[in-house]
């Protein structure tokens, strides 16, 4: 059962003029959250803004003894609610409902975990990298952004033993271009008998390219989709994703309860 916590803002770290990491005191949600799950956050009390916004659980925060104390969110300013969360001050409270949705399926060795992130799509991968590391799974993060200043938390992933493959659109760090290009080369070079699970989160075009590329090489791919949603519980039918169904048909599934993690090869990409 999801928990609705009036979560206190513990810390707010600005990463850039657009991105911040908001730490929230929500021990029960933190203890229950699995990698890839999300929370619905209401940035302000009152009716404007009215709706909650979905956020992947970015980090599970723990005290010295390892007990979960809260979660953090990777926030990017794109509108009124995300502006408020960017400006949130420690001590302030936000309503936080979760954990919600289906998590990533975490693989075991010898399967490798390859995470593919675009921009704010980095959000579910700290938690996933930790889970992969705990199981002893070798992991790689393919991470693309517009420029070097928007590639965040690289040290955190390095500490977790994750290999980094970085791309920027302006070439200021890593390879110039899109993140799917190095992914494709790695897939082409990989022996067919060495299993790999691909995890992707980011803009829709990147997800489609990743899922299509994975399918072309016969590799499984779990994608975490982002949709506008009102409730996060299956009530509003706002957040649908068309999934292949029957012969050439499709069926709309609610990404809040059937996802947000969905099998990439079954999504009917635009």
């Amino acid at each position, binding site marked *: 059962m*999801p928990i609705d916590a009036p979560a206190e803002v513990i810390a707010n770290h600005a990463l850039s003029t657009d991105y911040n990491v908001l730490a929230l005191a929500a021990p029960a949600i933190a203890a229950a959250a699995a990698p890839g799950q999300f929370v619905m956050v209401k940035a302000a009390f009152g009716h404007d803004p009215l709706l909650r916004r979905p956020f992947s659980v970015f980090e599970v925060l723990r005290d010295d003894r390892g007990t979960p104390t809260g979660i953090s969110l990777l926030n990017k300013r794109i509108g009124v609610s995300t502006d408020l969360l960017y400006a949130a001050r420690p001590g302030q409270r936000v309503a936080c409902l979760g954990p919600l949705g289906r998590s990533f399926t975490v693989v075991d060795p010898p399967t490798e975990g390859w995470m593919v992130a675009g921009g704010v799509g980095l959000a579910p991968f700290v938690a996933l990298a930790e889970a992969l590391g705990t199981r002893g799974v070798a992991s790689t993060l393919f991470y693309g952004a517009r420029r070097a200043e928007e590639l965040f938390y690289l040290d955190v992933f390095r500490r977790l033993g994750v290999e980094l493959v970085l791309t920027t659109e302006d070439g200021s760090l890593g390879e110039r271009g899109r993140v799917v290009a190095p992914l494709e080369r790695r897939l082409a070079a990989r022996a067919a008998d060495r299993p790999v699970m691909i995890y992707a989160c980011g803009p829709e075009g990147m997800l489609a390219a990743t899922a299509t590329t994975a399918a072309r090489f016969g590799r499984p791919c779990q994608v975490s989709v982002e949709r*506008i949603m*009102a409730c996060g519980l299956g009530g509003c039918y*706002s957040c649908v994703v068309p999934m292949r169904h029957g012969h050439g048909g499709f069926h709309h599934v609610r990404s809040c309860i059937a996802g947000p993690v969905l099998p990439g090869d079954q999504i009917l990409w635009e």
Partner: protein
Amino acid sequence: MDLSVRIGSLTLKNPLVAASGCFGYGVEYAEVVDLSSLGGIAVKGLFLAEREGHPAPRIVETPAGMLNAIGLQGIGVHRFIDEKLPELRARKATVIVNICGTTLNEYVELARILSDAEGVDALELNISCPNIKEGGITFGCSLTGTFDVVSAVRKVTRLPVVPKLTPNVTDVASFARAAEEAGADAVALVNTFLAMVIDVETRRPKISNVVGGLSGPAIRPIAVRMVYECRQTVKIPIVGMGGIAEARDALEFIIAGASAVQVGTASFVDPFIWPKLLDGIRDYMRRHQIARIADLVGTIDARARDHEWTSS
């Protein structure tokens, strides 16, 4: 303290009903809401067949409200009866099935099928969805269409029949009267207000259907006015809705003339809202020494209040 209200032959244990289209088929909320604690659950609108609805994006937030054009995605009446109704019955929910047709015969067929199903407590006729091209609102925007569909359904069912009216007409009370004359047990109002939002950077509408229905606190004063107008016009009970987010909002509708109220958008924001609303209503009843909530219905004191105005 008696919170029960009557809608035709149906008694609701309290006046709070989950609004159609805002609560899935009810079972989605079984983990967070005691479904038997609600006065009723108006399930997502059903056609005979399954429908996929519109592509995303289907909603956009607006000032104190939201716009939706889901397009009545649904599993169809047969799957509802097989897959959802048994759990709703097991959880002792009061089930109001919202039905929608593209033809008058489809409404009749749906009413027949649901009248034979165990566990259906009332039928809400969706003649007001603004987001589909055919059927539904075609009936709800014509007085004869409203009369015809209500009387046709009336003839084939003993279940309480509650048409849900659209506010997108000049005089909603005349539609309430047409429904009453056709034998409706109650009327439910309002559905959403047809509206649109444009992204000025791209010059494109923000939802895929271009236009959609506006709900949320932004519409509440208009909805209250419409319930009030209908209360002056018809004798059958009214189920009021539109932007209820707190107990006093529900009470406003009740005082304006609604016997029961529905809550939709606010339960998206706070799925745990139901006991809070009930507590607020009970507190009001205590403070005003009201023993039966039914006694509060339509008790608005609409005398001119010029003498009370203060200059400001």
